[in-house]
């Protein structure tokens, strides 16, 4: 997703001379081409996230469209008040880019995991939260964020995230993408766990369960129309995210569901409310949280059969 981000950013920068990139000293070598093509529009501000966000806000207030890049927990939590006051309060056209959503930086340990960022970012007024599901979505999300003109949090994976969409997609902020169709249930996914959601759907299909998959790449604002259709047309909603079950996509949909008297069950798949106590790869850490194709598809099948409640 990192490479797709840089491709998308270069395309946006070619179109709009206001687009520029700030990094707080992360992204070794990956921005070399961008820096070469757009002199003066790439800036390593040093290991100083708070300053990076304040500077980005000042740049945006005076006509630029900065992207501020770091590893997700550093880009969001270290400088949260700057994001809230300098960016969101001023409605400044800053895109905060968090690389390494969820367990993407698995072996780096919990300091580098990002399992609360969606919750925290979506609580901020004026903030749009984008978690594209694959590199194709990432590339387009960058352009959408650059054109948005308001605060955006763009959460991406790291490297090696599989491509889900064949060809291009029509990426619009606030409009979910249907990746698989089906009438038995809906699996709503956000962010870099989309490939797992698709594989789960494929496995369920082998068991004659037709599972619709939505890529809810925009967690805020939610695509309520798409959710409403899924709730009416399929028997159950499941959400999946590489993020805490507290405050993320599942929470957002549960809030919407409760407030709108949406019929049918809703079940959440996501990370447990705890720090990883052992080290491991992204796949390993997903597994500790039940986020595997096998476990999720078994769980969905059992819940649809009425054997287990949510």
């Amino acid at each position, binding site marked *: 997703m990192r490479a797709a981000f840089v491709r998308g950013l270069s395309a946006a920068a070619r179109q709009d001379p206001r687009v520029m990139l700030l990094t707080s000293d992360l992204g070794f070598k990956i921005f070399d081409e961008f820096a070469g093509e757009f002199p003066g529009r790439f800036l390593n501000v040093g290991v100083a996230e708070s*300053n990076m966000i304040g500077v980005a806000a000042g740049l945006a207030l005076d006509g630029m469209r900065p992207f501020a890049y770091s590893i997700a927990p550093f880009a969001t939590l270290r400088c949260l008040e700057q994001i809230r006051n*300098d960016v969101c309060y001023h*409605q400044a056209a800053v895109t905060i880019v968090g690389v390494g959503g969820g367990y993407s930086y698995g072996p780096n340990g919990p300091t580098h995991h990002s399992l609360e960022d969606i919750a925290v970012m979506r609580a901020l007024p004026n903030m749009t939260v984008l978690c594209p599901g694959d590199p194709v979505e990432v590339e387009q999300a960058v352009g959408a964020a650059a054109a948005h003109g308001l605060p955006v949090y763009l959460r991406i994976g790291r490297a090696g995230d599989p491509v889900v969409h064949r060809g291009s997609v029509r990426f619009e902020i606030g409009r979910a993408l249907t990746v698989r169709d089906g009438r038995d249930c809906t699996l709503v996914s956000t962010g870099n766990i989309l490939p797992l959601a698709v594989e789960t759907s494929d496995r369920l299909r082998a068991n004659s369960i037709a599972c619709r998959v939505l890529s809810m790449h925009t967690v805020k604002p939610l695509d309520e129309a798409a959710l409403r259709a899924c709730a009416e047309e399929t028997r159950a909603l499941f959400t999946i995210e590489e993020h805490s079950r507290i405050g993320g996509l599942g929470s957002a949909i549960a809030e919407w569901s409760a407030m709108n008297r949406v019929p049918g069950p809703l079940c959440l798949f996501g990370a447990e409310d705890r720090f990883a106590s052992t080290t491991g790869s992204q796949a390993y850490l997903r597994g500790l949280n039940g986020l595997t194709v096998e476990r999720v598809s078994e769980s969905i099948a059992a819940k649809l059969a009425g054997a287990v409640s949510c």
Partner: protein
Amino acid sequence: MAHAGRTPHVGSALSCVDLLVALYFSVLRVDPSKPNDPDRDRLLLSKGHGCMAQYGALAERGFFPESALDEYARDGGRLAEHPGPHCVPGIEAATGSLGHGLPMGAGMALAAKLRGASYRVFVVLSDGECYEGSVWEAALFAPVQHLDGLTAIVDYNGWSAMSRTHLAMDPFAEKWRAFGWSVREVDGHDVSAVASVLAAVPFEPGRPSAIIARTLKGKGVSFMENDLEWHYRPPNDDDLRRALLEISG
């Protein structure tokens, strides 16, 4: 304002009011009839709690009618105890949480450079604010980017909200110099001295400028000077009468 709104921070406002008078009446290239002119100089009061002084100076300079000051700390009013973004003409940025103004000001100065604009950016900080790490992140950043359109003015009254600041801050000018700023010190209550020092920025081409303004918290009202009580206490009827008597002489 503090009396009518029953708000604190009178001492903080009196500490920086002479700096703001010098800025708004002698230094800043601003036109109150064109508050959004892209080429206007920007002033950020990073010590947002001193904003009574800024609201007053802006009204006096003609950015908005003096009657708007009645909205201060009133239900439904535009003037909060810490200014909101463009809450009234002349307010460039929301401040209130300390340590935000200098990074934002650095961003604005960088935008001017990138876009070939001629405006300058002035940020007024408090010395207590300089406990915030983000001030020093920006202090490291601005010289590297050669932001000579950026000037930091520290209202150095020697007080934070509970203590004296000298032990932490001194030697203060040396700290800024060591970070790569070009530094001058001035009596922060000598309006003409402040104006003439500010007229000389940038002190060195390619470097941001820092001015350490020696000030007195509560300046101008004898019973408020150097007394932390007035960081907190709204003036009552009698306080107001005595203060006005002293100020108007």
